[in-house]
């Protein structure tokens, strides 16, 4: 008896069955509910239980979590798995689309990503009655950002400035973004892979003979023109690499003279090597915030809001600020630090004066087809 027809049928049948079975239970949902039916957190009773937080690395000191656990009795699992907004989104999106958060009750993402997630219906609105410290202490300039005018779903964790970080021993004359295009520094500059930092800086600096762009009225063509400038610099070898935080390695080893970088990193790099300094570009810097948000499906939003309230107490914020060295969104922190650690309190990068940041801007928002086109153009440059 020949088994060949039987074998073929068996194989074909099992392939078909398996495919159908998995197709039936595969996920099809991509978007969430949309922003019309966003749920709001209802804080119930005293905060307790377990709290899982996802944050960027090196964004908190070692004492705050144990202190919080002792003060509230909540057990905190603090994970540092946010390295890049888009990559974190890529990781979380399949869960969030199903209304789950992978166990997290709170995570921290930059402004534009918070806006995007809210748009896709992945975030919950906050119960403001449970976060009185935020209402009281949030600095005025962060109270009404364009992406969340009433601070319904986001609370700033830290702010920062994007500007130039320079090896002043190797290249003392760099004071402007346009200096990065100077052939004198060919192959000795890095730019950020973060599109909303790099491109607006180039736009508003008006390099290579192009007029400076007013960011509040930036058009898609302005973005594409700036991306083209960067593309030429990348192709000619002017730009050594596009990096995330890893520009720190290039700066310390001296492989580059200057990078576009973040202010908090500059404070930490300077402590190790006094020649590495944050230089405020002549044309101004970019201002941004990373925000605490509560996702859909958060298992313990009550504890998450307790955390938000806790870190907005100036005393606790001062402890965090002393280590993190970014720009604090909590009013009153400077006063506490003047007594605790005056060098931090008087550091222009941590408590910048209004005149220091007078030319600084927030990145313009992109939406829809415009965002798609600009992102694709920029990523084509970064990927050669």
């Amino acid at each position, binding site marked *: 008896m020949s088994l060949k027809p039987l074998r073929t049928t068996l194989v074909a049948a*099992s392939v078909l069955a398996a*495919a159908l079975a998995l197709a039936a239970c595969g996920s099809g949902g991509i978007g969430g509910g949309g922003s019309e039916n966003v749920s709001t957190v209802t804080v119930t009773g005293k905060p307790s239980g377990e709290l899982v937080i996802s944050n960027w690395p090196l964004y908190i000191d070692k004492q705050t979590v144990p202190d919080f656990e002792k003060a509230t009795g909540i057990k905190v699992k603090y994970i540092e798995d946010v390295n890049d907004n888009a990559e974190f989104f*890529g990781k979380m999106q399949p869960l969030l689309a199903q209304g789950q958060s992978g166990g997290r009750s709170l995570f921290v993402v930059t402004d534009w990503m918070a806006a995007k997630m809210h748009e896709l219906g992945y975030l919950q609105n906050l119960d403001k009655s449970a976060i009185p410290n935020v209402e009281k202490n949030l600095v005025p300039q962060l109270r009404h950002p364009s992406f969340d005018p009433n601070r319904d779903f986001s609370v700033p964790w830290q702010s920062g400035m994007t500007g130039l970080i320079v090896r002043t021993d190797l290249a003392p004359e760099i004071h402007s973004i346009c200096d990065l295009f100077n052939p004198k520094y060919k192959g000795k500059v890095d730019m950020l892979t973060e599109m909303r930092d790099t491109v607006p800086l180039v736009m508003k600096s008006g390099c290579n003979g192009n007029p400076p762009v007013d960011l509040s009225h930036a058009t898609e063509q302005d973005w594409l023109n700036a991306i083209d400038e960067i593309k030429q610099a990348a192709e000619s070898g002017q730009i050594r690499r596009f990096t995330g935080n890893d520009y720190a390695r290039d700066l310390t080893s001296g*492989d580059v003279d200057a990078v576009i970088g973040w202010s908090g990193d500059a404070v930490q790099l300077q402590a190790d090597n006094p020649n590495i300094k944050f230089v405020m570009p002549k044309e101004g810097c970019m201002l941004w915030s990373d925000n605490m948000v509560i996702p859909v499906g958060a298992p313990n939003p009550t504890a998450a809001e307790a955390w938000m309230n806790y870190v907005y107490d100036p005393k606790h914020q001062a402890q965090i600020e002393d280590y993190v060295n970014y720009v604090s969104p909590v009013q009153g922190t400077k006063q506490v630090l003047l007594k605790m650690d005056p060098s931090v309190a008087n550091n222009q990068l941590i408590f910048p004066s209004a005149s220091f940041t007078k030319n600084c801007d927030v990145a313009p928002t992109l939406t829809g087809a415009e965002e798609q086109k600009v992102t694709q153009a920029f990523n084509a440059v970064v*990927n*050669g």
Partner: protein
Amino acid sequence: MTSVRRRLVPYFLLGPGIIWLILFFAVPMYFMARLSLYSGTVFQGNLQFDWHWANFKDSLDLYHSQFVRSFIYAGAATLIALVISYPLAYAIAFKGGRWKNAMLLAVVAPFFTTYLIRTIAWETILSDQSPVVKVLTDVGLATNGHVLATAGAVIAGITYNFLPFMVLPLYASLERIDPALIEAGRDLYGSPAAVFRKVTLPLSAPGLVAGTLLTFIPAAGDYVNAFFLGAPNNQMIGNVIQDLYLKQTDYPAAAALSFILMALIMVVFVVYIRFAGSEALMGEEARP
């Protein structure tokens, strides 16, 4: 056992393997093929299935230079790995003696560290201030003290990371050669070079084919080396796919590019097997 049951035993034995292949290869392939016909991105919230065949053409138009670059880098790395590995495998197989196992361990030892760390270590080795680069500049192999962020650095990284994949198959087939055959060749007045060409090389052909394929195929899709050791204009197709998937959440384009990459590698594979299997490459077919 009845005659029918006995005939079915092989299928039962194959069962787990087939189920594994279906669940973890055939089904994901089906989903990815379906995904490559979607349009839109997750960010835009407009991902939908609409027989969007244009994905294939558009991606190829945008990223064809990365494809070419990937195959050139992978090819160069394979060749360099072959040149380094063949003498090494030969020495271990024929001259190793007591030290065979220790030498094999030395070849494999770097693999105890993760791939990522090994590549990052190369960033330090090849950094502009390192003694290695200074020596290379003096010798004239590097231009103006700048090795990192060039194609050379990426190819060097790929060669290093895939070297054991070339050494081990070569060693395995060289080791299996009966020394009596080589002796016989010499007895028949063959010079060492002729014996090598007519006896050793053909008999090691299986290991050669296996080693080159095991090196080339993963190297063509690699992205780690280009990410750490390359400049923006050294990025490979693996980087593009990673970026499209993770950063731009453009799943359809990423899926389309993956299929194109698979198809191209299949073509290279089929052509290579036919060529490597032909008599023309090895002279007379060597029969033990």
